[in-house]
């Protein structure tokens, strides 16, 4: 086992532990803390994939904004008061569905012959990403800005208290 593989297993283990904690934790605040672990570990996976720009974006958006948002929503909905009701009665079926998906996809991954190089990571420089994003993908980029604006306005309208409420 090379050093790279060792690092991969450590980061992958952290990711899986975090994700597992999110779905099985008996306390919602613990689930949110596990989510932070999982999201930061995914940033590590991005680094291993030589996508350093995306790793930074991941830490900024997920490690910062998303976790704060989730924790605030948790406090405001006071979900802490009902720990017994965290999971529904459909749990065994959910586990079955997840296991079926996992088995099928791992089978597909292992049996597929990938075209091209499957051992070497090619680093894509940030400058190239920027150039492609703002030249070839300029229209989707602008649409994404519009989506963010609409989401912002919509969230404010939905969450603000109405007159006389």
């Amino acid at each position, binding site marked *: 086992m090379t050093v*790279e593989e060792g690092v*991969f297993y450590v980061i*992958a283990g952290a990711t*899986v532990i975090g*994700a*597992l904690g*999110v*779905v099985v934790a008996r306390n*919602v605040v613990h689930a949110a803390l596990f*989510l932070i672990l999982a999201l930061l570990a*995914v940033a590590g996976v*991005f680094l*291993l*994939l*030589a*996508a350093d*720009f*995306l790793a930074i*974006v991941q830490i900024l*958006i*997920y490690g910062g904004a*998303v976790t704060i*948002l*989730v924790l*605030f*929503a*948790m406090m405001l*909905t006071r*979900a802490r008061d*009902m720990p017994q009701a965290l999971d*529904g009665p459909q749990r065994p079926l*959910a586990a079955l569905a*997840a*296991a079926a998906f996992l088995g099928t*996809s*791992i089978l597909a*991954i*292992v049996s597929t012959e990938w*075209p*091209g*190089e*499957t*051992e*070497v990571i*090619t*680093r*894509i420089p940030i400058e190239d*990403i920027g150039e*492609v*994003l703002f030249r070839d993908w300029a229209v989707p980029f602008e649409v*994404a800005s519009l*989506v*963010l604006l609409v*989401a912002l306005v*919509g*969230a*404010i309208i*939905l*969450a603000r*208290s109405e007159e006389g409420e």
Partner: protein
Amino acid sequence: MIPINHFLVLSAIIFSLGIYGVLARRSAVLILMSVELMLQAAAINFITFAVYLAPGEFRGLIFAIFVITIAAAELGLALAIVLRIYRNKVTANVDEVDMMKW
């Protein structure tokens, strides 16, 4: 070097945990967290294919950027809806929010 299958299997594991969370959890906030996990798995897959199989094209990385952007917008909007439901029905449990069901 790390073979491509390692990353793909990791992403499949995260995605199935997300499926389990979405189906088994009852609190809307916890379901949204599981959805985030599934989006993360998709982003890992996009980047993996981009850096291994098609390094000359940037589609995978660009798609991952858009996934992260749309996920942020989705989470903000969804949490606003959850807060709204909580204000109207004093619960964030999806089993009790059935006013659009008959």
